[in-house]
């Protein structure tokens, strides 16, 4: 089973975020893995232990910045990831969630295509009744590239009967071999994608659901998603995922057939994989840990350049906004306010007031303020003023 973990690189210190007209300049910042994505890796790890297969980490962004993060993932968690892919291209920069989802979905599709093509190659060799030596050599190459699992070809001593070895030794017919390969090829469509609920920089949580929808665009069937999953299990015999998610005060228990995309909530704790499936899991596993970061650019994944990066983004980020300055601020002990009620005051033909106790003085012309000080009508805003303004209305109502 192909298990994809979608990861994001986020600025390490959100205090030093570099943006140019609203677009993050990831090249110029220290980047770490989005903390929420740790749960995605945990979940991917669980699926691999339960079903077998390979965990592929996929990310998008500047390769130089992401490579150190991705290279650290092979040894993460119990199993770690087996392959890491970075979608990296200048043209992808400035993408909002829609453009990101489109790009990532093409990355996932290419991943599946590459894996399907590998099986197709084996199928073609068998159909053409290729020499056994050639078949074995090519299978070994594909196996070493992590493209076919132990079930199909294996160098593991524990795996005694791979499809190819049985075919080569004449234990199964060409027909049976092809049908096994076909079945495996089809099973590649039963993938699981996991990702964190959101990123700590964008905080939108939109990319997960949008990748599922984007994949549905690319394929002729609907790829569903479930967000905020805090618990799930997977049943390989029926290719079913059962997941729990919270909505307000309700927990929904949902069931879905693969493929599916799950966003994994920070509260997720991985289950213990039941014992007794070791053999199946091993057969479904791949050689594992191809430690060469795979880089794909926009052309390679077949992206329409109008749909990626800034040009493919329907939303624009504008300037920063100053939020919520209060209309009237009274600093304890510093802001001068009226001690008591004062009627209207005149100054140079203008009328000011009347004033309530606690009203600020600082809007008034200086000479008026001096006069009020001399008459002892104003004082710094004090504790009693504060009490009256905070609680006066509640006291009255009791």
């Amino acid at each position, binding site marked *: 089973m192909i298990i994809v973990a979608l990861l994001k690189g986020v600025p390490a210190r959100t205090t030093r975020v570099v943006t140019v007209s609203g677009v993050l300049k990831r090249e110029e910042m220290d980047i770490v893995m989005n903390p929420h994505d740790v749960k995605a890796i945990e979940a991917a790890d669980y699926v691999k232990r339960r079903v077998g297969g390979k965990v592929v980490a996929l990310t998008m962004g500047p390769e130089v910045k992401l490579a150190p993060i991705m290279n650290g993932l092979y040894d993460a968690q119990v199993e770690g990831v087996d392959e890491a892919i970075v979608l990296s291209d200048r043209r992808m920069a400035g993408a909002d*969630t*829609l453009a990101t989802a489109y790009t990532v979905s093409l990355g996932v599709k290419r991943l599946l295509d590459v894996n399907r093509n590998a099986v197709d190659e084996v199928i073609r060799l068998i159909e053409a009744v290729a020499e056994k030596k050639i078949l074995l050599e090519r299978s070994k190459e594909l196996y070493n590239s992590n493209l076919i699992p132990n079930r199909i070809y294996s160098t593991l001593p524990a795996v005694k009967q791979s499809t190819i070895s049985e075919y080569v030794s004449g234990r199964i017919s060409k027909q049976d071999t092809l049908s096994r390969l076909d079945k495996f090829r089809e099973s590649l469509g039963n993938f699981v994608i996991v990702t964190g609920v959101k990123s700590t920089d964008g905080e939108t949580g*939109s990319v997960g659901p949008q990748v599922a929808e984007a994949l549905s665009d690319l394929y002729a069937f609907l790829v569903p*998603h479930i967000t905020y999953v805090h618990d799930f299990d997977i049943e390989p015999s029926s290719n079913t995922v059962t997941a729990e998610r919270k909505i307000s005060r309700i927990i929904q228990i949902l069931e879905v057939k693969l493929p599916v995309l799950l966003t994994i909530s920070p509260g997720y704790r991985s289950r213990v994989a039941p014992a007794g499936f070791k053999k199946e899991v091993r057969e479904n596993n791949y050689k594992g840990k191809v430690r060469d970061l795979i880089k794909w650019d926009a052309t390679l994944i077949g992206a329409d350049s109008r749909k990626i990066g800034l040009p493919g983004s*329907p939303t*624009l*980020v504008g300037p*920063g*906004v100053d939020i919520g300055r209060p209309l009237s601020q009274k600093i304890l002990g510093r802001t001068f306010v009226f001690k008591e009620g004062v009627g209207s005051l005149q100054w140079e033909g203008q009328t000011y007031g009347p004033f309530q106790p606690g009203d600020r003085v600082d809007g008034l012309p200086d000479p008026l303020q001096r006069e009020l000080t001399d008459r002892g009508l104003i004082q710094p805003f004090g504790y009693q003023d504060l009490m009256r303004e905070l609680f006066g209305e509640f006291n009255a109502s009791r």
Partner: protein
Amino acid sequence: MLQDDGYKGVWVHIQHEEGQLTKPTLEILTAGRKVAEKLNHSLTAVVLGHEVEFLGRKTIEYGADEVIYCDDPKLENYLCLPYTTVLTNLVRERKPYAFLFLADEIGRDLAPRLAYRLKTGLATDNIELEIEDFYHVPTKTVYKNLLIQIRPDFATRVAKIYTPWHRPQIATVRPGNFGPAELDETRRGTFTVVKTNLNQEDFTVMLKDLRHIPTSPVQLDRAQAVVSIGLGILRDGRGNPRSSLEGFRLAQELAQAIQEKFGLKTEIGASRALIYAELKELHGLVTLDRQVGQTGKTVSPEIYFALGISGAVQHRVGMLRSKKIVAVNIDPGAPIFQIAHYPIIGDLYEEVPRLTELIRRF
């Protein structure tokens, strides 16, 4: 590229729970009303569900001009795919100018999927919405009356987001920022029942079971007063270390005094930095459900106390709608003072007991 022709009206997605409009839904009606009035468009409440026609009608009394009601037993419980299909069909047929959702477990699930299917923009977690003209510099074009979506961005600032070329402009709105819509039983509006058109495929994800969870005893969003503490409780004004429990107790006493004296429902809140510090003494007292801010709760109580909280933007967006903000901080330059109605420059270890005492004697 502009698809503005014929797109008119502001829509809000209505959520309901156990036969009632949820409190945040009343807020989204406020948000929608504001935007609709600025645009001079009508406000449409979109209600999906089963046998909840009366709730649809209720939204008119809360400010909707029109209700689109889709009744189907299969829509009784929220599921993303069927809801997306129904809303996609409605949008394609009726072309709203803007469509608002709540930024909660439903809106954050549904709005992205819908926005992608419609290939339009989505701005999440807005704390404010405005209508303004937007000048796009690269193309020297003015877009009239755009929905200006204001949200915390890149975790360091609050920014405006625009969707100039695509319609509808879709936004999710953070509860706690708009205030509930007011009931006016004399309001009248139109009620349209729409037939749903669901596919088998929409039920790929099946609802197997539901479980109700007991409501958390901490209800920050319903509190009338919130007393929040931050890392400032770790040292007093002279820089001497203090036990965080001592600071917590001071806040608790202040909260109790307010509750007892004035009958205001008062809760303790906290900054994320304090919660994440995972201090042993505060275990079980300063829990995650008390976090105020962008990644915690948004609160808008009558009175908010920020005690030893610097007021990082992520904290401020969670409390700036409070009616009266009192901030106690030793640093006169603390950002919290920018939004406090009542700054108190001083040591919380002195100021808080004094405030508590003053309240008791008030």
